């Protein structure tokens, strides 16, 4: 059930081209307004592009003068709001999709029961959505979406509205369900991408900024957004004698073998950054933020996670001048 989307929506400044392979789960990430929702709308049939096409499993859904209405696409959307029908019970909600797929009353009833059991919520079968918690409602929504047996599942930040202690269990369940299916997930959460997605496409300003296998992309980001998403610092400079030379002339030692003078990206974790008395990258502190048991020290282009004691010792505050050092073994260097 491979998907290919190639469409432009000029009024939203969107011009996209992306593919999802059969059985693959693709994560779509990017800043707000980058075109993620537009992409989902185009695929679901909620939006017509000015030009372009949407092809699922060889069938043209949009484009070439054809238009398959949303209910005939076999593309089901699961959003952060479960959108359960308030007048139907949990079982009734799941049954609705099964009946819409043309299953008999009895079979739909039985199948709905099976899906409730699969999600571990059999005891909620006869509850109305108003009597369900956020996590329970989202489980019913997942069961309902999966029971409809779509060719492609679209997930629009499915865990964003859930409590922090509910999301992990649901993510784990979703992981099992998505493994054999073709799916596209929009997310702001690196954990979603890590545990659910085979591949990531990064959108920025309506275009694909970069894409790659999840692990590859999260260890070797090429855009500032991806680096932030992966929790990494990303700097770019020219390679010279075992170091990346940044714009301001500071050298960042790193392992690698590149042509001298070629552009090189260097990625490193904020927790690998140390304060140093001399040498290092000179920066001015722009902000301090708590981050677990560390403090995130923000400077232009580089963030450092330091223990509070060190912050106190050096009396760091916004405006303080610092010199930052990153051990060569903590830096991943790759061609820009």
């Amino acid at each position, binding site marked *: 059930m491979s998907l290919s989307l190639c469409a432009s929506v000029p009024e939203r400044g969107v011009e996209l081209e992306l593919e999802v392979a059969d059985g693959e789960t693709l994560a779509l990430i990017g800043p707000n307004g980058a075109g993620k929702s537009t992409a989902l709308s185009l695929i*679901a049939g909620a939006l017509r592009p000015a030009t372009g096409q949407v092809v699922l499993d060889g069938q043209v859904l949009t484009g070439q003068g054809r238009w398959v*209405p949303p209910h005939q696409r*076999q593309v089901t959307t699961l959003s952060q709001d479960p*959108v359960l*029908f308030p*007048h139907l019970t949990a079982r009734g909600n799941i049954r609705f*999709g099964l009946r819409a*797929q043309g299953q008999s009353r009895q079979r739909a009833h039985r199948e709905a029961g099976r899906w409730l059991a699969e999600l571990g919520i059999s005891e909620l079968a006869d509850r109305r959505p108003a009597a369900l918690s956020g996590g329970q409602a989202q489980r019913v929504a997942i069961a309902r979406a999966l029971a409809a047996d*779509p060719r492609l599942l679209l997930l629009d930040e499915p865990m964003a509205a859930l409590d922090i202690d509910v999301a992990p269990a649901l993510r784990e369940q979703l992981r099992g369900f998505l493994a054999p299916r073709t799916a596209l997930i929009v997310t702001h959460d690196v954990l979603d991408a890590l545990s659910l997605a085979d591949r990531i496409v990064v959108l920025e300003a309506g275009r694909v900024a970069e894409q790659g296998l999840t692990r590859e992309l999260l260890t070797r980001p090429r855009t500032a957004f991806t680096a932030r998403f992966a929790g990494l610092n990303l700097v770019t400079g020219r390679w010279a004698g075992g170091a990346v030379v940044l714009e301001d002339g500071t050298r960042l030692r790193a392992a690698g073998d590149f042509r001298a003078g070629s552009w090189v990206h260097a990625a490193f974790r904020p927790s690998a950054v140390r304060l140093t008395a001399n040498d290092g990258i000179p920066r001015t502190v722009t902000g301090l933020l708590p981050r677990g048991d560390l403090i995130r020290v923000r400077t232009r282009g580089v963030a450092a996670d330091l223990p509070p004691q060190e912050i106190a010792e050096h009396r760091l505050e916004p405006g303080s001048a610092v010199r930052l050092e990153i051990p060569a073994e903590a830096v991943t260097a790759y061609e820009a």
Partner: protein
Amino acid sequence: MRSLPRWMLLPALLGGLFVLLPLISMGLRVQWGSFGALVTSESSLQALRLSLQTSSTSALVCVVLGVPMSLVLARSSFRGLSLLRSLVLIPLVLPPVVGGIALLYTFGRQGLLGQHFELLGLQVAFSTTAVVLAQTFVALPFLVISLEGALRTAGTRYEAAAASLGARPTRVMLQVTLPLMMPALLSGTVLSFARALGEFGATITFAGSLQGTTRTLPLEIYLQRESDPEAAVALSFVLMIVAVLIIAVARRRVVA
């Protein structure tokens, strides 16, 4: 409540009295001794029966025509939609007499459609059918306004979710849209029934006032007012009780 300026209570109270006092005054005029006899006279009972029959039929016609109208107005987009939306509400602001004349020139003997009906041997004007048409004409906007408003407020997210699960438009309408709209549909139906029950101007213009055929309760009350004021008051009291019951039902539906 505490943030309201105190002086505002006075005009509010006056307004309330203005609505309630006439009703109370009328209630005080009811001759309870002869009440039973007055409201069960032959002509009263005929008028009451006719009113209930025609108003129920009108309410039904309003549902049959008004639900699709509301859905089209609330859920589709085409050129002239907003103009159409305003036009549909015209009977709401049109003097009912004018509505009656318009109906007469449509379904009357010489009317646009009426002259063709005449050839088929059908005569609409001055029949019970005319009463239903007149009532439906004035009552339809009530149903459309309340249902269309509710449809717009509810938005399309449930319908989009249903379509995304593969449900055809008819299934979505019958199993998602209409069940969710049930409170609005019920209150809209009750309101249009009430409007039909109170209809006077369009009815007397288009349907006339033939006892047992087109003389509904409001017409009966108007005629009795000349000949037998006590009967008019008694029948008015009956209509007022019906109105109170309708408000009670409609309000509960809306709140629920």
